[in-house]
């Protein structure tokens, strides 16, 4: 496995976490999320990844959605917000993420 494979594995594991964290902070619509993610090359993802993922999170009831009219003459946008179930899921992910960082940190210290 090379570094590109590893990066895409990392992305696949953390994209859901990143997106839920983003939406928990502020309700967003799909394209907004894609733009936001593009700030970080390691997380940047295309429509074909993000939209189906959002749809799945919606089906699993971690997110809820609503259509909102825009004022600029653009068509309505589908906004996503986090549900209580989603908040619990996110809290669990946060905990596991900290465990992971802790473990890696200790391993690296051991190496020093």
């Amino acid at each position, binding site marked *: *496995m090379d570094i590109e494979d590893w990066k895409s594995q990392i992305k696949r594991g953390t994209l859901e976490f990143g997106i839920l964290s983003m939406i928990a902070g502020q309700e967003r619509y799909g394209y907004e999320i894609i733009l936001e993610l593009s700030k970080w090359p390691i997380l940047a993802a295309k*429509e074909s990844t993000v939209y189906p993922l959002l749809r799945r999170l919606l089906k699993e009831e971690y997110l809820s959605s609503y259509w909102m009219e825009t004022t600029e003459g653009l068509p309505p946008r*589908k906004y996503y917000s986090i549900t209580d179930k989603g908040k619990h899921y996110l809290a669990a992910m946060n905990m596991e993420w900290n465990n992971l960082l802790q473990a890696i940190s200790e391993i690296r210290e051991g190496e020093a």
Partner: protein
Amino acid sequence: MNKKLEDYLDKIDHYLKPMPASERIDIVKEIKSELSELELQNNLTAEEIMDKLGNPKELAKAYLSDSLSKAHTFHWRHLGSVIAFYSLTGISGMFILPVISTLTIAFLIFAIISPIAGFIKLAGSLLGFDVAYIMFQIGAYTASPIAAFFLSIVTGLLFFLASQGLWKLLMSYIRTVSHIKQTL
């Protein structure tokens, strides 16, 4: 909206056919919203936009198989579990599904026929003739027409409940299989 983008959306809608209509409409509506924003706010050309979103068939497939499309890198373990899954569901699918669904239908038919038969027997006896070929019999016990009628309703009910139970079994089997498939 540019005609090319309308065609693009039509293609996506076409490739999403396996999905229920309400979901398809919602998906296309969401993509259309982004296309319009890219066109009107970001001032991208239709070609640039279609390039960004990619092949419409691939995009539709991404929606259709969300979990399977995540496996872009090849792992032997993944192949192993996929083979195991399809072998199990293939074998069970060849036997379990046909047997249970046939039984479900059969029980439902029995549930309907049973009280009808009991009614015919009872009606016959009330009208003065014995419907000999319809009888309720367990071992040496043969029920009188009136008893038979009530018993036929009971058996009809039992068959109906059995068919409902089998149906629930079938549905939970399918759900379990789909859930496992999603986690592959």
